[in-house]
């Protein structure tokens, strides 16, 4: 094993690195890898959560486009529905739905961290904040189903 003496005055230092200047050592800075998000499951999950926001954006644009198509009349809308029901589009939208659900669930799970609610002296527990989100989601879904089905 190589023993390195302390760089005190009068002591010999085993200096192998030719770039080393006595009393002016260089700090070592490691480059952060581009694929850092593959190094830990939690980092990967974070990147997937961020990337699935594209699916959220896509769905919002799609819904607005659908409304616009609806305003163009019955025939145009039926043609658009036919397009939506084609197999490749159905498969694509299945994937989009999976991404949407992943995004929503992961974000909902994080919500209690940002929302610290107090009612007087009582701190609303995280589980209640979380279930409130899911309840609101269920209520919105039920409303949409009711509007479509009635």
């Amino acid at each position, binding site marked *: *094993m*190589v*023993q*390195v*003496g*302390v*760089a005190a005055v009068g002591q010999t*230092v*085993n*200096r*192998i*690195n030719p*770039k*080393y200047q*006595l009393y002016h*050592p*260089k*700090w*070592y*800075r*490691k480059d*952060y890898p581009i694929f*850092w*998000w593959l*190094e*830990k499951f*939690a*980092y990967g999950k*974070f990147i997937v959560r*961020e990337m699935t926001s594209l699916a959220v954006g896509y769905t919002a644009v799609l819904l607005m486009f659908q409304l616009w198509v609806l305003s163009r009349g019955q025939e145009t809308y039926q043609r658009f529905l036919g397009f939506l029901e084609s197999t490749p589009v159905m498969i694509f939208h299945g994937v989009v739905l999976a991404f949407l659900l992943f995004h929503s669930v992961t974000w909902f799970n*994080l919500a209690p*961290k*940002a*929302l*610290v609610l107090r009612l007087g*002296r009582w*701190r609303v527990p995280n589980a209640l904040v979380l279930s409130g989100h899911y309840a609101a989601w269920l209520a919105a879904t039920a409303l949409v189903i009711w509007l479509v089905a009635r």
Partner: protein
Amino acid sequence: MAESITLQIQRYRPEEEEEPVWQSFEVPRHDEWMVLDGLNYIKDNLDGSLSYRWACRMGVCGSCGMLVNGEPVLTCATYLSELGGGRGPVRIEPLTGFPVIRDLVGDIGDFITKLQRIKPWIIRQEDKPLSQGEYLQTPEELALYQQYSMCINCMLCYSACPIYALEPDFIGPAVIALAQRYNLDPRDEGSEERGDVLSQHAGIWACTFVGECSAVCPKHVDPAGAIQRYKVTATAEWFKSVLLPWGKR
């Protein structure tokens, strides 16, 4: 020695090598030994030149944070016998995100500078005279910030934060949590002063909520939660200042 375990340690001796190298040491394997005990064994018996920081050995001083098998941990609170099924090898590196001065010692000057910027002390607009006694608090008032006051400045959260590694200007998880420790203290009146630092892009808005800072925190401070809470506060303040410009900002 009856049973031993291999510690692979990242060595960086600037006078010897331009880049860090790995060096393996065999140390005794005792059930009650922490990683830090293994390092101290090396320092005392095998290689006195090994450099690392430690002080209290009881998870209070926050000096002995290192990467152990890739995870930022306090080496005084991590059993050797629990790593890799107790057989090793155990890989020990300095914390990510800080320039390495020597072996396992990082330069933490950046953290200290940022910590000072948020004025981590109780700020009063006007101090009341001593004759009026201390500032009393109820247990409920203490509970508002107590969690954030548990931070021991160990910087494990910085090491776990990819944003800090990618955007060195980011003031980082612990500093924001400590700012919240004072902002949420009812005795404090300095949240506006801290807001200037916290509300910048390099403050709370650089955080993308990876959440690993809270996962690695040995004191359950939850810096990620502190940052998100402050985002809500800063947004509410901004709306108030826009909608009620005549009100006190």
